[in-house]
C-alpha cells in the first residue's frame, strides 16, 4: 500500500513540475513520422509550449472524437473533416478563431464558417477531376486528345464507349452513404442549383436546375457502371470503364498502380449553357480548437502554424491529392513539377462545398435516398425531388425548433 502511495505521489509531483510548461494535445490522422518534424519545429520556435501528438485511425477516429467530446476530455487542437465542422460548431463544441489577414491567403473557408463566425483553419484541400481511358476513346472512334468538356459531349462519349460491349462501361457513377450525393451534387452545382436556399431556411432541391441535372445523370446511368467508389475505381484501372470522376491525386496513383492504363485527365464537365462553370466538390481537412482547451491562445498559435504551407507540405509532399490550403502553394517548386498541376489549380477555382449546416448528415441521407430512387428508375427526377424537398424542409424546421435563436 505504501509503495502504491509513493508511486501516486511521484506521478503527481511530475505532473506538477511539468505544469510550468503549456502542454497542448494535438490529435490528427497522419503518421507520426510525417507530423513529428513539424511539431518539433513549432516547439523549437516556442520553447514554453509542449505538444503531445496523438494519431487517430481513419476507421474509428471519428468515434473516438465524439466520445472525447462527450466525456469533456478533448484535445486542444484537432483535425476534422470539413463536413463535420458545422455540427460541432452549432453544438458549441468549438472555439471561435480569428483568421484576420489569413482570409485572403488561404482557400476553402466555406466549411469552417458557421453563422458568420470562423471555427477553424483549412489545412489541406482537394477536389475531383475527370479521368478518361484513352485506349477506349480510340476504340470507340473518339479523339483521345479531346476529353469531353460539356454534358452532351460526356453523354455522347459514354454512349459510344458502352456500345463497345464486352463488359465495358461508358462512365462510372459512384454510390454509397456519402458517395452518392458527393458524386451527383457537382452536376447540380454546375447547373446553378443548390441544396438549400441562400438563408438555409428552406430546401431548393426541386428547382428546375436541380431537376434538370438529375435528369441528365439519370440518362447517364444507362451507360454507366454504378457501384461503390472502390469498385468503380478498380474497374477503371482495369480498363473496363471509359470515364470516372476521382480525386486529383489519382493522377499519380493510377500511373503507379495501373502502369498499363493509358489515361488522360481534364476539368470536370459543364452544362451546355453559356458562361456555365464546371463546379466540383471541394473537401478539406480542417484544424479546429475544441472549446474546453485551457490554452486558447497557444492552441490558435499551433493551429495557424500547422496550416502554413511549409507545415502542410508534411502531408502534401507524400499525398499530392491533398494540397495545402495556403495559396502560396502556387509558387511551390514541388507542386509545379507535379503532373497535371495546371488542371488541379484550375479546378480548384471552381469548387464548392456542401452547405455547412449542422443537420447536413440528415439532409444528405434524404438526398442519397431519392437520388438512388431516380437511378433505379422507380421515381421520376421531379417526383423524387419534390419528395426530397418536403423531407428536407421537415429536418430544417425540426432544427429551428431545437436550436433556433
Amino acid at each position, binding site marked *: 500500500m505504501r509503495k502504491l502511495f509513493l508511486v501516486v505521489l511521484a506521478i503527481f509531483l511530475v505532473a506538477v513540475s511539468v505544469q510550468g510548461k503549456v502542454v497542448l494535445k494535438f490529435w490528427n490522422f497522419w503518421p507520426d513520422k510525417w507530423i513529428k518534424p513539424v511539431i518539433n519545429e513549432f516547439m523549437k520556435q516556442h520553447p514554453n509550449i509542449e505538444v503531445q501528438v496523438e494519431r487517430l485511425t481513419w476507421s474509428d477516429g*471519428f*468515434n473516438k472524437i*465524439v*466520445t472525447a*467530446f*462527450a466525456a*469533456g476530455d478533448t484535445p486542444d487542437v484537432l483535425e476534422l473533416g470539413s463536413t463535420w465542422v458545422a*455540427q*460541432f460548431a452549432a*453544438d*458549441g*463544441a468549438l472555439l471561435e478563431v480569428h483568421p484576420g489577414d489569413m482570409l485572403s491567403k488561404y482557400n476553402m473557408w466555406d466549411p469552417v464558417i458557421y453563422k458568420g463566425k470562423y471555427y477553424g483553419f483549412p489545412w489541406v484541400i482537394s477536389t475531383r477531376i475527370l479521368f478518361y481511358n484513352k485506349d477506349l476513346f480510340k476504340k470507340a472512334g473518339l479523339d483521345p486528345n479531346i476529353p469531353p468538356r460539356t454534358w452532351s459531349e460526356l453523354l455522347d462519349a459514354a454512349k459510344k464507349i458502352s456500345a463497345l460491349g464486352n*463488359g465495358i*462501361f461508358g462512365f462510372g*457513377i459512384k*454510390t*454509397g*452513404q456519402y458517395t*452518392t450525393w458527393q458524386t451527383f451534387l457537382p452536376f447540380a452545382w454546375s447547373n446553378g442549383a443548390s441544396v438549400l436556399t441562400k438563408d438555409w431556411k428552406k430546401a431548393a432541391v426541386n428547382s428546375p436546375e436541380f431537376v434538370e441535372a438529375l435528369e441528365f445523370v439519370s440518362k447517364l*446511368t*444507362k*451507360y*454507366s*457502371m*454504378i*457501384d*461503390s467508389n*472502390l*469498385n468503380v475505381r*478498380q*474497374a477503371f484501372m*482495369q480498363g*473496363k470503364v471509359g470515364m470516372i470522376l476521382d480525386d486529383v491525386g489519382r493522377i499519380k496513383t493510377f500511373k503507379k498502380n495501373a502502369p498499363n492504363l493509358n489515361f488522360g485527365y481534364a476539368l470536370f464537365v459543364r452544362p451546355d449553357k453559356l458562361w456555365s462553370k464546371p463546379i466540383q466538390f471541394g473537401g478539406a481537412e480542417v484544424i479546429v480548437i475544441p*472549446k*474546453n482547451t485551457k490554452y486558447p491562445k497557444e492552441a490558435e498559435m499551433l493551429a495557424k502554424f500547422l496550416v502554413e504551407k511549409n507545415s502542410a507540405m508534411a502531408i502534401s509532399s507524400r499525398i499530392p491529392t491533398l494540397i495545402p490550403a495556403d495559396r502560396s502553394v502556387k509558387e511551390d517548386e514541388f507542386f509545379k513539377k507535379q503532373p497535371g498541376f495546371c488542371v488541379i489549380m484550375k479546378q480548384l477555382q471552381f469548387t464548392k462545398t456542401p452547405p455547412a449546416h449542422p443537420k447536413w*448528415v*440528415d439532409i444528405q441521407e434524404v438526398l*442519397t*435516398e431519392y437520388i*438512388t*430512387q431516380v437511378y*433505379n*428508375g422507380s421515381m421520376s427526377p421531379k417526383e423524387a425531388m419534390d419528395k426530397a424537398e418536403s423531407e428536407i424542409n421537415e429536418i430544417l424546421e425540426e432544427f429551428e425548433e431545437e436550436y433556433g435563436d
Partner: protein
Amino acid sequence: MLRKKRVKDIINISILISPWLISFMVFKLYPILFSVYLSFTRYNPIRGRPPRFVGLRNYHHLLSDPTFAIALKNTILFVVVTVPITTTLALLIASVLVSSLNIRGKQIFQSGYFMPVVTSMVVIATIFSYLYSPNGYLTALAKFLGFDLKYGRGILADPRYALPAIMVMDIWASFGYYTILFLAGLQSIDQQIYEAAAIDGAKGFYLFRKITLPLVSPMLLFVLVINTIRSFQIFIEVYVMTQGGPLRATTTVVYYLYETGFHKMKMGYAAAMSYVLFLIILSFTIAQKLLVRYQR
C-alpha cells in the same frame, strides 16, 4: 473461528478475481446501466450539455420510426434465414467429419472450414464486395442463373438482392465456427452407445435422430443461442459493404443505432434502440432454451 476463516476466504477470492471484476464493472456493467438511463434522455454528446430527461419519448418515437421498422425487419429476416442454415450445415458437416466414413485429408477439411472464422470480417467483406461488383464473378453467376440485374449494377446495388447477398457471405464465413463446436460435442459421445444401438439394429438416420441428436443437444442449444445473438448484432458486414443501402435494404438494427448515435449524435435514441434489441435477443434466447428443454 470458522466464520473468521470464511470471511478471510471471501476476501481472498475477491482479491483474486478483482482484475476481472473491476474491468467488468468499469467497462461493461457501468456503461450498460448508464445506457439504461441514457435511453430515457435526449443527449447530444458533443453539445456539452448534460443529458435531458424525456421519459419514454425515445421508446415512443421508436414505435413510429419507419427506418427502425425496416431495420428490425431486415435483422429478423437475417436471423431467421441464416441461423437455421448455418446450424444445420455445421451439424451436417461435423457429423460427416466425425463419422467412420473414410475421407482423405480430414484434417485439411477441418481446418479449411475454420479458415473464414479466423479471417477478419472486414477482409472477407471487402473481397466479397469485389465478387458482387458489376464485373465480379458472383454477379456473372447470378446473371447466368437468370437474376434480373440492371445494366451496370452489381448484386449489392440492387435493393432486392443486397441483403440475401450479405446473408450468403455470412453463412459462408461463419458456419465453420459452429462446425468446430459440434465436432467437440460429437466427439464426446461415447462410442459404446452407438455400438449398443447397432446391436439393437439401429441404422443410418435413425441412429442420428435417436442417439446423436439428443446427446448433442446441449451443444445445439449453445450454438443456437450464440448464433442467434451474433446474427442479431450483424454490423461489420453492412458497414463495410453497403452502409445500409441501397434504399435501406440492408440497414440492420445495430447499423442504424450506430448511425443514429455516432453520425446524427442522438445518443439517447440510439440507447433506446439498443435496449429494444437487447429485449428481443433476450426473449429469443429464453424461447430457444425452453424449446430445447421441452424436446428433451
